[in-house]
């Protein structure tokens, strides 16, 4: 797989050199879409499928449709190793790349998203932190260039509480229960704390906070705390090796897997594989369905993998994180189409793409047209709301069949509570940074 990746990189480099050589010849206009990826380093097992899903979908569009509305998409990957400093360097190096300039960035890290918020806002380049990043960036009046649809960490935390409430026989029964949050001790892992604290107060459950330092290779003390505190449920905001070790440690203290829910970044095949049968029944949030039984993926296989141009191994296509990377590409493409329609030109820039993102409306019809029937639920982004308040489902790992299965309906977040918190936090950010919220009317 790595050799193939290298071949793609070499081919891309050759193409860029060739492009430079023919700079005097009128080169076809392209949409430049950088992607901050980590195919190396400790978080590579998760970074690779995300990157593959993204580039495969864009390559499929180039192959099948000649790009987006006839304009080719040029995906430029920059290797970050999940390092914030390197990611910012990648951003600076790529923001003016290509005729269109960088149209959008996917940081693939909450920490990097935080670092890029002021830069991208000043440069008028949208950041798509799909389902991660700073939650209060959902307030488009304060964060005009940051998007975190289809749902934020706070929405997800509220959905977990709703799910637990339903399992306990009603939200009233949460009173007196204990929920532990095992989280990556970073900006990312700390995101849901505020919401969970508010919900703990509202519903009367006790919240137990258990941070785990990077990378999370050793967690015995954390799980000793779980064993001692005897929480009824454990939520996890983990990433990389932290997930795998946590699931193993949970099994080692015989914590019931069907009371252990991971955020959607803790719910991939990578996370459960090392624990083997012990991971059976482990739960995780998700914004989309797992598997490869979707038209978009079939098109990727036909137009990319069957021609030997796949970013990774064919048998990894359809894994949870692969599908998520593909989804980022699908939304990006949709936003480009919207921007072209709004501005009446195919030669758009980042600022214009922002307008396309702000009218992103995902419906059953648009999902079907994108080959994603039953893949996720509709949502709508607006100038004010960059989250879209999409629905979230719970999936469960079936160790015997080695696959994730949706085990809940699509659950609506507690929007009333989450939106209030978003407004409050965004307002504080605006005040701190002397930002005057824009008008969306």
């Amino acid at each position, binding site marked *: 797989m790595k050799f193939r990746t290298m071949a793609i990189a070499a081919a891309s480099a050759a193409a860029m050199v060739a492009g430079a050589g023919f700079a005097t010849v009128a080169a076809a206009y392209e949409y430049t879409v950088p992607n901050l990826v980590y195919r*190396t380093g*400790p*978080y*590579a*097992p998760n970074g690779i499928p995300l990157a593959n899903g993204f580039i495969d979908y864009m390559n499929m569009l180039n192959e099948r449709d000649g790009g987006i509305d006839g304009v080719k998409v040029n995906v430029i990957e920059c290797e970050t190793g999940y390092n914030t400093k390197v990611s910012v360097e990648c951003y600076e190096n790529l923001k003016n790349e290509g005729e269109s300039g960088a149209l959008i960035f996917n940081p693939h890290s909450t920490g990097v998203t935080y670092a890029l918020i002021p830069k991208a806002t000043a440069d008028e380049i949208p950041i798509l932190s799909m389902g991660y990043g700073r939650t209060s960036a959902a307030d488009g009046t304060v964060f005009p260039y940051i998007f975190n649809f289809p749902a934020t960490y706070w929405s997800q935390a509220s959905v977990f509480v709703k799910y637990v409430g339903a399992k306990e026989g009603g939200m009233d029964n949460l009173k007196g229960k204990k929920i532990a949050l095992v989280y990556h001790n970073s900006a990312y892992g700390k995101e849901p704390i505020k919401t969970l604290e508010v919900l703990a107060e509202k519903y009367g459950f006790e919240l137990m906070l258990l*941070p785990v330092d990077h990378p999370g290779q050793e967690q*015995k003390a954390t799980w000793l*705390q779980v064993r001692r505190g005897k929480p009824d449920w454990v939520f996890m905001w983990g990433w990389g090796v932290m997930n795998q070790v946590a699931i193993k440690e949970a099994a080692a203290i015989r914590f019931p897997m069907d009371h252990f829910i991971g955020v959607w970044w803790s719910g991939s095949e990578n996370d459960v*594989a*090392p624990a083997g049968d012990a991971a059976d029944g482990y739960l995780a949030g998700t914004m989309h369905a797992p598997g490869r039984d979707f038209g978009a993926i079939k098109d990727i296989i036909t137009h990319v993998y069957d021609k030997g141009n796949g970013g990774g191994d064919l048998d990894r296509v359809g894994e949870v994180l692969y599908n998520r990377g593909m989804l980022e590409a699908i939304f990006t493409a949709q936003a480009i189409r919207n921007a072209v329609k709004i501005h009446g030109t195919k030669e758009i820039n980042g600022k214009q793409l922002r307008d396309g993102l702000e009218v992103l409306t995902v419906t059953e019809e648009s999902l079907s047209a994108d080959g994603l029937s039953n893949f996720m639920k509709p949502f709508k982004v607006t100038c004010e709301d960059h989250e879209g308040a999409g629905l979230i489902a719970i999936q469960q790992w079936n160790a015997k069949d080695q696959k994730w299965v949706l085990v809940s309906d699509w659950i609506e977040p507690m929007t009333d509570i989450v939106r209030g918190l978003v407004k409050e936090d965004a307002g504080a950010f605006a005040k701190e940074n002397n930002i005057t919220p824009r008008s969306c009317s």
Partner: protein
Amino acid sequence: MDFLYELLVQPFADMIFEPLFFIETVVKGLMAGVLYSLVALGFVLIFKASGVFNFAQGTMALFAALTLTGLMEKLDLGMPHWMLVILCLALTVVVMIVLAVVVERFVLRPLVNQELIILFMATLGLSYVLEGVGDLAWGSDVKVLDLGLPEGVWDIGGVFVEQLDVIAAVAAGGMVAVLAVFFSKTRIGRALRAVADDHQAALSVGISLQQIWVIVWSVAGLVALVAGVMWGSKSGVQFSLSLIALKALPVLILGGFTSIPGAIIGGLIIGVGEKVAEVFWYHIHGGAVENWFAYMLALVFLMFRPQGLFGDKIIERV
């Protein structure tokens, strides 16, 4: 007042009134400590024989585990699992010996008599090279390492003990015994120590520096393999394994860079110390102290015994 109570009274009261839980915490700390020691051992071996702090030791553990899992995937052609495991373990040992030869020939030999900092920087480079080669050869995916080691938990009177941890402890104990005998009782062991003291003096009495370095790097490679297997069995084999080296540093500071028993005792002290501090002083710090607590503990030792608990005291005439 509350702070002082939580700092000085409550933790000890908890230890007394929750004796089973305290025992379990100590046991888990000891088991974690054994795993730290396994990594620290590799550092000690190379430092003892060459005075070089081998920055690549963590990456060697990763490389060994990657090679093992990679070979097991490639050679899984229907033979019995135990046979596959033995074959792949043997092949991985060969790979680690070949690596030792290559390191000696292309990294160390050109740097004989250079400053130790130069050799250290070379191992830093080696670490990156090994990571890159491992990535190219075996890919970056999480690999499940199934050697058939027991994975369950023993419930001993309410204290949970992981079977894999016990296996690791036995492996570490066995290795220490063998290495202790090797260093103190064999001719090669004495030669290793001579080389560590002075390269040129060792050469002048007929000790082959090249041979010694190949041997010591091979042994460190085997230790890395065992460490990689134990850690990899718990988390899957993936690139974060190379970061386990960070866990070994405080162990080395505490135990001494030149002492094999020091690596073991240091590992156990760090393991128990960080677990007890994390669990029983949780109300004070709110968790996630394991990483920095180990270094703090090591620094406290450093103030009183700069050479570590068992390290050689360096006395230089000026």
